């Protein structure tokens, strides 16, 4: 290599670094939100079981909830860790995490809209703190998911452009 090649950056590589850095951060956020979802599910299940007299009747719902939480955990961990691998340039072949990321982002949009619809009722029922915190956390999760999808697409696009050059 020449010194020039090692010491100068073209605009594409600057953009690639920017989106890789962004992908790294949003991948990390996705991993954290995966763990957060599990934690929240455990707290909610425990809360329900401790306040109901007949817990046996709740068992089917609890089982479904736990299964969904586990699927959510695995999916988000896969997407988050794959995104971080791609950000580090370690993905040898293109993984399907981007499709799953889009699905998570779409579900996250639906979830945030649902929370917004339910917001006034939740405020009356629980007071303002719980709904506001829930909305803030889910909106952040949505932002992370959208950022992950956008950054991953940009990284692939720029890598393709650079590959063509």
């Amino acid at each position, binding site marked *: 290599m020449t010194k020039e090649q*090692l*010491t*100068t950056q073209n605009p594409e590589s*600057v*953009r690639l*670094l920017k989106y890789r*850095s962004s992908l790294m951060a949003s991948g990390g956020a996705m991993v954290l939100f995966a763990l957060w979802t599990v934690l929240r599910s455990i707290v909610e299940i425990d809360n329900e079981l401790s306040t109901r007299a007949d817990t046996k009747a709740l068992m089917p719902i609890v089982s479904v909830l736990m299964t969904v939480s586990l699927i959510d955990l695995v999916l988000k961990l896969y997407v988050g860790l794959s995104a971080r691998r791609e950000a580090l340039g370690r993905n040898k072949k293109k993984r399907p995490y981007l499709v799953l990321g889009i699905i998570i982002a779409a579900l996250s949009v639906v979830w945030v809209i649902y929370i917004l619809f339910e917001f006034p009722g939740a405020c009356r029922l629980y007071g303002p703190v719980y709904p506001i915190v829930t909305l803030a956390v889910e909106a952040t999760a949505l932002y992370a998911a959208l950022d992950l999808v956008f950054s991953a697409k940009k990284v692939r696009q720029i890598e393709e452009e650079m590959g063509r050059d």
Partner: protein
Amino acid sequence: MQLDFHYYATYCAAYLAGYSHEESLKVCYSAQFPDNCTRTFLAGVKAPVSAATTQTAIEMADANTDPIGLQDITRIWASFHFLPYDLNADVKKGGNRYKDKYRLICNPNGELLKETVNLVRGKSLEGVGMAMHILADTWAHRYFAGTPSVVINNTNSFFYEILEENGEWTERPVNFKHTPGESIEKCSYINSLGADSESFIMNLGHGRAGHLPDYSFIRYKFMPAWNDNHFIYKDNPDDYYHAFCQMIYAMKNLRGEGGAFETGVYAFETAAPYEKEIRAIIEKRQLDACADWKAFGEKLSGQEIPEFSVDAFRSEYESAPAEKKDDTGLGRFTLAALAHKSMVTNRIYKSGSMLAGYSLDYDGKDVGIKDYLKLLRFRKRGNRT
């Protein structure tokens, strides 16, 4: 930079600028002294502790990182080791706190450097030496700030050494560690511990880049958070040669050659006969270039350059009577240090930043921090630092 450049190379530059052997020794001694003049040292010889130009590791570990403590740290490190390049830089993004810190980033040829050199004009050789330390450090410590800041001073995994082997240029990742022992061959260097806390002392100056800015031979690239995903290429051999030639120009200028000191001017023609030799010393892959610079300096002047020892200042100061202490080497150095620290603090304060604390106007002409009063009294007696 370290002893090799601040002491021995400054001796060479002073001698080439026209100072005698004895004068060059005084200049280079004071050029190294900012790395030794701690509060602990000053308190030990009963000199004004406000003139401290550096901090020991223990002093730093003991320093508070509340606003007052941070201002004290910033006054020392921004004034003497990381002279800010542009205190009024137009920063597009970020909050005021970030902008203030960004403006403390050190770089050569700033307005403050001009003021630094012109401040010691016609004054003591100790002042000249101190100014040469600051000038040289603007080259070595460029791109870092003399205040603890994770956003300005932190480094990440993008850190590569760039080296030439048999005409072929390559890069290799720098391995930073926190245990003793550095290896040029393995590209393994010590740096300070990483900490996410913005004002943690480990994020002061170039600690996170280890001593790499202090080694003249190394070329590297890294990516600070403030540079918007652009890496910075640091060519130490080239920077150190510029620092050497700028020191010659500055000292020639202070000796009365050609008006006020201007930035961006280098005495290349004075260094030209020795360029090959100087560049060979600078580019030699070694962690300590003292022996080479010493040999070059002794060849230049034909005189022996004694080893640096803080005791030279200490014994003279301690043995002087109270009324004569300001006339000793350490006395003149501390007065020059107070004047410089006050000037830098004042400029930072006037730029709208409180990172170095308040600066007061004492008599419409003299400005500075509270500690400046000693200097003010000294000047009112009709003396010049």
